[in-house]
Structure formats: C-alpha cells, structure tokens
C-alpha cells in the first residue's frame, strides 16, 4: 500500500463531495480491507477528522479493518436459516476452517462471517462463498463447499460447457501465432501479448478459452485501467475498429486461426467482447 495510490482514489471521487463511504469502498476494493495508514491519508486529504472516518469504517459491516482472506464465507443466521440449523452449519465451518467467526484462517485463504438474512429463506440454511450461493447446506456439505472453493468456484468445465471453447489466436498484421504453449491458463496454451499502461511495458497472458476471463500479467493491472495491447512479434498495436459496446473503451482486435476476428475490451475488468466468425468453417 502506498499513500499515493490512496490519494489517487480520493482524487477519482473528488466530484462526489464529502462522500467518505465511496472513498472507503474504493480503498477496500483495491486492498481487500482498510489499512490503518489509508484511513489516516483519507483524513488528511479530505480534511475530515480521523475519528469520523474511523466511525464510518467501523459502523458498516462491509468495511473491514483487518486483512481478509481470499475467500469470504458467509453463513446465514437469519430467522429461517437459524431454525433450519444455521448455527450448527456455522460451527461446522469453524471446525472445517479451524477459525472463529469473524476471523481469517492462518493461511489467509478463508474469512468466516455470519449474515443476518440473505432474503432467500426458502433455500436455507444458506452459505455464500464469494458471491456463490450454496442452498440447503448440511453439515456434511461443509467440507465439500470448502474443497470446491479451494478448487476455484469460477472454474468453467471446458469439456462440458458448450458455450466455452478454446481458440487459436494469430496477429492480424504479421500472422504470427500468439499462442504460448509453455504458459497454461485454464489448462490450455495462453495468448501472449505485450501491454503498455501507465508507462509500464510488460507481458500479458490471456486465456485462449473463449468465455473465460482469466489473465496473468507481469504487472498488476488496476481495475478499470485501459491498456494498449501489442503483438509481441511485429510490435503493432492490436487496435480494433469500434469502441467497446459496454464501456466505450477501445477494443483490441485479434484474428482467430481458421477465420474470424475476436475483439476484446481493453479495459481491465470489463467483459465486453465479440467474436465475428465470418469465413470460419
């Protein structure tokens, strides 16, 4: 964490005056929690007192002053889930994760929390892990939920899901293959390109599976940053001809071997993309 990155977040929300919650939300989105130092910087920059900011940060349950685990497990203890055995599910998670409610496991993988109600009482007891809902959870299910989370909840089954398939990408100018068989993402060779953003040059590897948004990058690309993407062979910018239909950032265009053009949004976090398969057999 650096004070400059906090200052940037505050500057970005300058048009929403005195909106401490927005600033804190952005900081939390970036770091996963609210570091003590960040609150001091916010107090300094916004001219509000640290007491008030600390009060807001401790008032809302969304905010956490302690680092949280990679996965957030929320066990519903609303009335309906409570009578259906929510507390015993909570205890089962405490045993399975070996941590108390409200705490993070030693390996920083899980944070165990309880929520009052998720509004889906008919499906209780409910457990939410990283926005994935598990309904009618039994004590026996608890270990399965933990195991599944460790395997990756967003993982798509390429062999079963028809809307997801691997493609082979080549540069639209020099027709060199961009596939990198030495670097696997989603168990398939990744697409290697060069990126340029904020005066940083580096490699970026995209999943070649159409429908997967997994990437690996030399530098951490901040959310919502727009990057320029180049072919690593001919160094041409892989520019698309239209703006992203979702966020209007420039699109990046690449050619699919066998015919067709795939365009992806250049903004980090935006899932705007299109596949034009004219001429593809």
């Amino acid at each position: 964490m650096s004070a400059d990155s906090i200052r940037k977040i505050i500057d970005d929300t300058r048009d929403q005056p005195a909106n401490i919650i927005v600033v804190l939300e952005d900081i939390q989105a970036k770091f996963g929690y609210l570091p003590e130092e960040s609150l001091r910087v916010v107090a300094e920059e916004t001219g509000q007192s640290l007491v008030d900011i600390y009060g807001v940060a401790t008032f809302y349950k969304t905010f956490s002053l302690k680092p949280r685990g990679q996965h957030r497990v929320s066990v519903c203890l609303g009335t309906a889930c409570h009578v259906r055995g929510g507390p015993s599910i909570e205890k089962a998670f405490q045993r399975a994760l070996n941590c108390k409610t409200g705490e993070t496991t030693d390996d920083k993988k899980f944070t165990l929390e309880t929520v009052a109600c998720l509004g889906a009482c008919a499906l209780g007891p409910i457990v939410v892990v990283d926005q994935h809902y598990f309904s009618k959870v039994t004590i026996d299910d608890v270990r399965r939920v933990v195991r599944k989370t460790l395997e990756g909840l967003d993982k798509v089954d390429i062999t079963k899901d028809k809307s997801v398939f691997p493609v082979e990408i080549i540069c639209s100018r020099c027709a060199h293959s961009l596939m990198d068989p030495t670097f696997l993402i989603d168990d398939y060779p990744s697409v290697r390109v060069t990126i340029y953003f904020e005066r940083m040059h580096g490699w970026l590897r995209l999943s070649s599976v159409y429908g997967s948004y997994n990437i690996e990058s030399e530098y951490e690309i901040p959310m919502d940053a727009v990057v320029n993407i180049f072919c690593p062979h001919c160094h041409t910018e892989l520019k698309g001809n239209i703006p992203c239909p979702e966020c209007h950032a420039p699109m990046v265009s690449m050619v699919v071997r066998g015919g067709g053009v795939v365009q992806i949004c250049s903004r980090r976090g935006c899932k705007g993309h299109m596949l034009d398969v004219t001429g593809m057999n």
Partner: protein
Amino acid sequence: MITLKINGLPVTVDKGATLLEAIRFLGFHVPTLCHMEGLSPMGACRLCVVEIGNGNNNKLVSSCTYPAQEGLNVRTSSTRVMNARKMIIELLLATAPQSKTIQDIAAKYDVRRQRFRQRYESCILCGLCVRMCEEQMMAKAIGFRGRGDRRSIGTPFDSKSEKCRLCGGCLYVCPACELRCTYTEPDKAVCGGCANLSPPCLINYDDVMCYMDPCVACELPKE
C-alpha cells in the same frame, strides 16, 4: 416568539428553543444525563422524556432535542412519563450501577432495584465526552465506534491520539466513570442513601466509597 403550555402553565420562549429550556425556565424538574449547556443536544440518555400532545395523540419525546412549538401541551411528570423514566433509570442502573450520578437520580425517583441483567460498564454512551472534545475543546480526539451492542467511545484504532491535549474535559463531564458507592455489598449498588441527610455511616463501614458526605445508607430501613 412561541407560546406553549407546560404542565398547564403558559410560557413564552424564543424560536428555536428546546422543550427542556422552556421547562427549566419555568423551574420544573426534568432529570438529564447527556445534556449540558454549551454542547449540542443529543438525546442519548432519554431521561428528559416528556409527554406532548392532546387526547389520543399523545407521545413521548426527549425534551432536550424537541423544539418548542406554538400551542404545544407538555406534561413533565404524568404517569406515563414517570413510568418511562423509571424504566430508563433501571436500564441505566443495569448498565452502570457504579455511577454516582445515576445512583442519585435513581434515589430521587425512588428506584431501589432494577430487573435487568446486571452489567458493570464504565460507559453509558451518552456522548457527553465526544461532544465536549469536539465542540468545546475543538480536538475531535475521541468518537463513537462500531454499532449496535459493539458501540463504544474511544480513539481511532485504540491508539494514543495526536489530537488529544490531555485536557481532561471528557473525564470532567462523564456521568458514569466516577467511583461507585458500594454501600455495604458491592453487588447491590443502589443504596439511595445519598438522598438522605443525617450523620455519616463511614464509621460503621470501611468500604463505603461514596463521595457524598454524609452518606447514610445504614440509616435506611432494611427491606
């Protein structure tokens, strides 16, 4: 200027005055804990509860925060008010039985026992110290933290505040953190003896810590 009736007596106050100011102007007694002149009203302790309205339209409001309105009919000690106030006193006693201030109020209202689970908090969250620090000392070193049953008053991160000048204003205004009058049995802290005025009992009991001189708990008839 606004004219309203308090316990049937008409009184005229400036616009923007609170009910409590009007009530005290007439000299009626209304107990308060979280109210202090020079600090903004907060309505945290609810002790200053009064009844307003007519007929079926009655309601209880905290007089320290309620602005005086034209033609308002205020009762400061109706049965409903007294019942509500006694309940609030019991709750305060349950929270901080060791507070001399709360004990005095309880004794005044003849509250001799409370029916709730006994806690021994050193804070009733009245916010006097927070407002003192912010409004009179211009420091803002302490504030409210958390919410619900985890609400507390203190400095951010529980660390020493660089804003604090150790003025002691927060201690000065605190109604709860005084040492408690233990009577003779520490667990039954409400003695009410301070409301009486007869020779001190210090001779008889070693562990009486009440600042009131004289404290005559021993003279009270045993129930």
